[in-house]
């Protein structure tokens, strides 16, 4: 039986899970927003990682066939996306139940209740097909793909279309319903959802327009063309393999919990590791030359020095002030009414960097408004804000001993292109051109990966064998 290892990183903003095999290869990744109920966040991340692992095992099994038939890959990717939509639908139903409940308790007279319910139904009717389309045609793009973010955005859009007097009651109902909805753990039946997803795909491919040309858009590429006339055959030939991955029982031989909420994870005490060690271990595993790690997460920034074994020799972290970490950017995005993912690309367009004080997140918001009044361009202000974050990180790195070759950047903020630009610039300015800077697409998963790797190693190392029970996941 294959052995798998799980790492869960319960961060302040997002919860991540990674499953690795005995070769330390990542086979599953899961991520969700951290919420009031930490255990639910951890379970959702873990379940997502297990589903993702099934799909990656499927792709691995079919490596040769996929190489020969690129449209197989397209089919599997689409299948995973629609599978996610099926989960989304279940969550949306749960949210609907909560909204109904809230409506009934919040509005005392029946007429208002009915009126509000009517609005809620039309809102749902209006956004559901849009979201379905986004999932089916991979239109979610760079947007945050967490359930809460997707529905909040659409709900807001729809409420804003209604008359102003409805805004407050509808938003109150929303605020009271979304938290209970997202804090319940939903158990999905993998087989049921995958079958539903395959049926949805049938519809999708059947309805493709006849004339599609290569390169005309991402939705109508060569692989899609092949699928158009071929999908029955493709789904039939993949059916057995899909059944097989559905059957796999994921034996999680050992697991490690890390991150800010680690103490609250339903893990045995000896399965809990500091996120400092996990980030360093994960970063070192992906880039073995790593000696200095910078991790910028949602609510903290860490500068970590590691040795040749990936063991931490010293670290510094900001735990007094949020300026200089992910939340700083989140706050600025809110202030500017743009999405977090748009910040970096917009900052890249800066022609100069406006000097911004980086000592306080809230005051940076005030400074931002003042600078806008003074006529500074949004892009230039954003350039300055991004640089300010990195200046702060540089000071933290200096406190920890400086940058040593190689330098690996991890954490959710490592996805922001402007952060990468200023970081590279300042590292080179301060520590020379010879420093190799590593940034991995999975940078946000480094803590969870490090955790999973600790889980694999600890079997032979530290944990008394009698103490650990093999955990089997029964989550579909």
């Amino acid at each position: 039986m294959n052995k798998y290892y799980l790492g869960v990183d319960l961060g302040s903003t997002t919860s991540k899970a990674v499953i690795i095999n005995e070769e330390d290869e990542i086979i599953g990744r899961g991520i969700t927003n951290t919420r009031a109920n930490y255990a639910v966040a951890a379970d959702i991340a873990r379940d997502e990682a297990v589903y993702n692992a099934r799909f990656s095992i499927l792709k691995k099994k079919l490596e040769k066939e996929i190489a020969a038939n690129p449209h197989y890959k397209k089919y599997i990717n689409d299948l995973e996306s629609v599978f996610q939509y099926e989960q989304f639908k279940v969550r949306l139903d749960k949210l609907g139940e909560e909204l109904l409940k809230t409506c009934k308790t919040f509005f005392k007279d029946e007429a208002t209740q009915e009126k509000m319910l009517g609005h809620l139904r039309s809102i749902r009717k209006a956004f559901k097909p849009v979201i379905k389309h986004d999932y089916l045609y991979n239109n979610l793009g760079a947007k945050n793909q967490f359930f809460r973010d997707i529905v909040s955005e659409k709900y807001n859009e729809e409420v804003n279309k209604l008359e102003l007097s409805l805004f407050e009651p509808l938003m109150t109902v929303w605020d009271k319903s979304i938290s209970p909805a997202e804090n319940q753990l939903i158990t999905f039946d993998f087989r049921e959802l995958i079958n539903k997803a395959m049926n949805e795909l049938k519809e999708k491919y059947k309805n493709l327009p006849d004339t599609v040309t290569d390169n005309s858009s991402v939705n109508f590429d060569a692989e899609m063309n092949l699928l158009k006339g071929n999908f029955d055959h493709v789904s039939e030939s993949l059916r057995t393999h899909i059944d097989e991955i559905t059957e796999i029982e994921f034996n999680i031989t050992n697991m490690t919990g890390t991150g800010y909420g680690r103490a609250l994870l339903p893990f045995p005490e000896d399965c809990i590791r500091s996120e400092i060690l996990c980030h360093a271990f994960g970063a070192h595993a992906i880039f073995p030359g790593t000696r200095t790690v910078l991790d910028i997460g949602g609510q903290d920034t860490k500068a970590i020095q590691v040795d040749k074994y990936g063991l931490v020799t010293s670290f510094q972290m900001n735990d007094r002030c949020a300026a200089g970490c992910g939340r700083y950017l989140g706050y600025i995005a809110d202030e500017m009414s743009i999405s977090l993912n748009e910040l970096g690309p917009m900052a890249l367009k800066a022609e100069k960097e406006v000097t911004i004080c980086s000592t306080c997140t809230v005051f940076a918001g005030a400074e931002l408004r003042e600078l806008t009044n003074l006529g500074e361009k949004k892009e230039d202000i954003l350039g300055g804000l991004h640089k300010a974050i990195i200046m702060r990180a540089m000071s933290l790195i200096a406190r920890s001993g400086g940058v040593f070759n190689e330098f690996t950047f991890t954490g959710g903020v490592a996805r922001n292109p402007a952060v990468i630009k200023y970081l590279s610039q300042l590292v080179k300015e301060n520590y020379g051109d010879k420093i190799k800077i590593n940034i991995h697409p999975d940078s946000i998963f480094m803590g969870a990966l490090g955790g999973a790797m600790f889980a694999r190693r600890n079997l032979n190392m530290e944990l008394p064998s009698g103490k650990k029970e093999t955990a089997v996941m029964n989550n579909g």
Partner: protein
Amino acid sequence: MSTQTKEAIKEKSMIIQKDMLARQFHELSITKETGKKVVYTFVPGNLTELILSFDMLPVYPEINALQSGMRKKSASYIKEAEKMGFSEDVCTYVKCDIGMMLNGNIGPTGEKLPPPDLLLLSYTGCFTFMKWFENLEHLYPGVPVAMLHTPYQEDGRITPDQVEYMVKQLKEDVIPKMEKVSGKKFDEERLAKMMVNSAKAEDLLVRILASAKHRPSPIDAYFAGVYYIGPIFTAFRGTEEAVEYYTELYDEVMERVRLGLGPVTPEGEMKEEKFRLVVEGPPNWTNFREFWKIFYDAGAVIVASSYTKVGGVYDLGFRHDSTEPLESLAKYCMGCYTNMNLPQRVDLLAGYVKDFKADGFLINSIKSCNSFSAGQLMIMREIEHRMEVPVGFIESDLVDPRYFSYANIKNRLESYFQMLGQRKIIMEQETEKIF
């Protein structure tokens, strides 16, 4: 420095010490009746024997401040001082002390402290002390001030000129003022006799702190260490009582060594020594027990610390010398830890890591203490590179509870202990590979 809460498990010596301190504070509370004169002065580089030789009683404002911190009174005292205009960034010992005075000067035992008859500004390594006493001078108008300037060991050594300079200050300013305040003539012979006792107690303290070289260490040289240094760093150096206390403590510690026992914590004996650490910087006083608990729960024992050297680095060989009483007071003042230059401090700490076979080096950086915090990052890097041990850095404050964040400190310490644990395992595996 007395013990704090009743439920804590105490060694016999701690009870003796508590009695000593209670008697001291009681004696201070009845000076009106006894007519004894009171000298306010500081711990690092104190002239206790000289004060006692005039039959005067010393009061140490920073000890009162830390006691107020341990007794959860410092927050309101600090608030009082801030209301007067002291900024958030001023040393919290100063603010706590001034707040206490404004609140009626009730000492740690609940008895009123007498006002000073003499402000003796003898200080080493901390320039805030000077400003502190300028404030006290305003609070107690008309009280004479004697100043003893201690030259910093910039070149890493104490020169004969410096000794001469300090003795001159003692003879020309400090002693005449003491004679005037106490109404007694300076008695050098009496001072010399006290120094015989000082040296005896110092010898014992050195051996007590060196006992941490044993495995397991019979003592915690930081958290329990602050109790051990209490009598000798404050009002009792040079007395018979101090010699008796240290003899008792020494016997207790040696008995623990004989039995192979670990240190005594407030929750009983520490069972398993997992990590041996050297710690730099003062402890936090407002959450002292909580802070200590994070360590002993993890099996971490402090085998050496710089804080227990603020009132004298006796392990480097210095002893008060009855053959040259004033010269040895001068040398004592200049030899205190915070009066040593940074390379000397690094050498001392690196030596502790080596001699006490420590697994790691940890700094508790104090927000409001410049004399300790300056240079700590450099010290940390030097120790990391020179000794190749994992280093840790935490931040808190002396007596301002607003700067003790339990969750943050615990998070950092947990990470640090895990670093040490992981390193031990990997290093053991590596050693196995070599053979």
